[in-house]
């Protein structure tokens, strides 16, 4: 299983101008992208953003309203699912309850009339460490084991592309972290292209080589996890992928490779290369862990920006402390401080200054809503309810 599939070279997956309408509602809005062969690709977005629909179109379980799907040079847009070199790991696994683990895993091979099914199945069960459970039925397995069966059942067919639809959504947090590492290991082992749909940004960043952040049927931004985390291009990406402090500001000057911006009486600098817009109203963003928090007023240097404010909340998380700092203009900023010193130095009500490297700030288009993509609690609960049902 060490190398790629026996069917020859692994193929790129290419989506061209993909559109899907559901009775007037546009679920997928003109998506074009190329997923290189052998990569681990994550489609990340909130529920209802069209990520699962996109996946189902690739699987052939849904027909696109327009647009095309290519695997290598082959146009598979109108091919039925059973003729595509693609397999899916379904949400909640969809294991056949009437078949044993062995027969579940052998299902695809039998349909294609392959030879040597027994050896292949036992090799695959070894890979996912389930050989002892081959004669059991899915209902007799734990969630994590069922998840591995679902992966084995799909991977054994050596598809060009493996689609994973929220595969870890039903597992508890600890098991989920463990399975993330496991899945990544399997992907590296077999070298198949994995397309992973998830709403969990941490999961997407941990596992994928490339993350595409989806919102309302479109891809907002795509790139390596570090790349889009460090330099988000929209407020939605900044807020959905981790947390961000976003402040409205106005470009007042240009200083070499930096924009000088003014906001509520403060002057900050943003690298021109890190701003999507170079003039007028912009939004200045900074990640919470890039902020340094200190008691009293800040001593500005050449390389830093700063804000003063009052601590309104301090939550000790163990590895770090999360502070909420209210600025003079009433916005609450988040700052993480690594627990280097030990003990709790700063308390609620303290006057503090927040400083950050100018080079860490990023600039977004001024017309954007600073709250776009912020996880709201009601949405998260609704998602949890749909998943558990």
């Amino acid at each position: 299983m060490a190398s790629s599939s026996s069917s020859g070279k692994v193929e790129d997956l290419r989506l061209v101008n993909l559109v899907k309408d559901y009775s007037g509602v546009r679920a997928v809005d003109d998506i074009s992208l190329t997923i290189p062969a052998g990569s681990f690709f994550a489609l990340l977005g909130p529920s209802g953003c069209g990520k699962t629909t996109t996946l189902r179109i690739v699987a052939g379980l849904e027909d696109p309203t327009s647009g095309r799907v290519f695997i290598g040079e082959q146009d598979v847009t109108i091919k039925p699912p059973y003729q595509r070199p693609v397999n899916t790991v379904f949400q909640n696994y969809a294991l056949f309850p009437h078949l044993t683990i062995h027969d579940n895993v052998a299902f695809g091979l039998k349909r294609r009339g392959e030879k040597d099914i027994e050896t292949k199945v036992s090799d695959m069960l070894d890979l996912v460490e389930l050989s002892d459970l081959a004669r059991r039925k899915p209902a007799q397995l734990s969630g994590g084991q069922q998840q591995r069966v679902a992966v084995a059942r799909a991977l054994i067919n050596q598809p060009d592309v493996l689609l994973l639809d929220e595969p870890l959504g039903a597992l508890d947090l600890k098991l989920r972290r463990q399975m993330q590492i496991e899945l990544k290991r399997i992907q590296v082992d077999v070298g198949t292209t994995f397309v992973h749909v998830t709403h969990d940004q941490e999961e997407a960043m941990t596992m994928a080589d490339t993350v595409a952040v989806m919102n309302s049927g479109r891809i907002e931004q795509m790139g390596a996890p570090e790349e889009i985390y460090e330099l988000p291009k929209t407020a939605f990406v900044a807020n959905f992928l981790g947390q961000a402090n976003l402040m409205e500001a106005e470009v007042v000057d240009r200083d070499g490779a930096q924009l000088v911006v003014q906001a509520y009486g403060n002057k900050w600098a943003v690298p021109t290369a890190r701003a999507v817009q170079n003039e007028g109203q912009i939004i200045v963003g900074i990640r919470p862990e890039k902020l340094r928090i200190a008691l009293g007023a800040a001593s500005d240097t050449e390389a830093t920006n700063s804000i003063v404010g009052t601590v309104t909340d301090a939550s000790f998380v163990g590895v770090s402390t999360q502070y909420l700092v209210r600025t003079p203009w009433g916005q609450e900023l988040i700052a993480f401080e690594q627990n280097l010193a030990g003990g709790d130095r700063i308390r609620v009500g303290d006057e503090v200054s927040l400083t950050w490297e100018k080079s860490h700030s990023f600039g977004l288009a001024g017309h954007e809503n600073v709250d776009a993509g912020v996880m709201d609690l009601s949405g998260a609960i609704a998602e949890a309810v749909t998943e558990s049902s």
Partner: protein
Amino acid sequence: MAIALTPGVPIAPGGEAPPERVKRKGKTAYFLLIPGMAWLVFFFVIPLGSLFLTSLERPLGSGPSAGYASALRWQNYTEALSKYDTEFLRSFWYAGLATILCLIISFPLAYFIAFRAGRWRNLLLVLIVAPFFCSFLIRTYAWKTILADDGFVTTVANSLHLLPDDRILATPLAVVFGLVYNFLPFMVLPLYASLERIDPRLIEAAADLYARPWIGLQRVTIPLAMPGIVAGTLLTFIPATGDFINSQLLGSPRTRMIGNVIQTQFARDALPTAAALSFSLMAVILVVVFTYIRRAGTEELL
């Protein structure tokens, strides 16, 4: 009054209370069973015993009018069965045929209602049950008119030379048709119930794993619908075997089923013969059902 003021105080502290509670719960369950058990004893077990004793009675004279006395006359069985073996076999043949036809008609119908009907689902289910609002007997009489020799259906079929006997009424075709018609809802409803429980993603998973629709149906949908198929076939086959209305209204003496024989024997007071036939029918059905359930292997799914 002092006693009444302390009702909440536990009498015995410690671990002895829970088992006591479990025991009492068990007793309540048995207590609740009493009405059901009483019903079964009075209206099933006792009549069944009485029927069995009747089936072994000996005649006091020649002919049923002379009356019968208690005995252990096992010949009643052999005599009845050898005399009415044709009707016996015919019943199983007609019922089996009707069950298979019901299954063939019901499966696509139930599948459609379960997976494709969308917002029409409840309306369609009501339509399936709607015939029950009208008596079984009246509906069968209606078919007698519809299938009559000078009726529209027969005339059209004859003009196309479709009928070997030139008629529908009073042929086996009409009887089997009547059975299919009358027992169809008993097949559709359990089938629907078990199909509706199938996660559509399992059918998608089959397609994703290279199963063409027909293979997916065979390997995934039908096995998962097995509890419904078994329940539906039993609910159709068992009453259809003992049915006498369809044969009486739509058939002829040449289509007599065992139900008709039993009914006639009871009507002319040949009680031991009727009882022996009823008992034999019950025994054969039990054997058929058990073999069937064993072979269908649905214990795990049920």
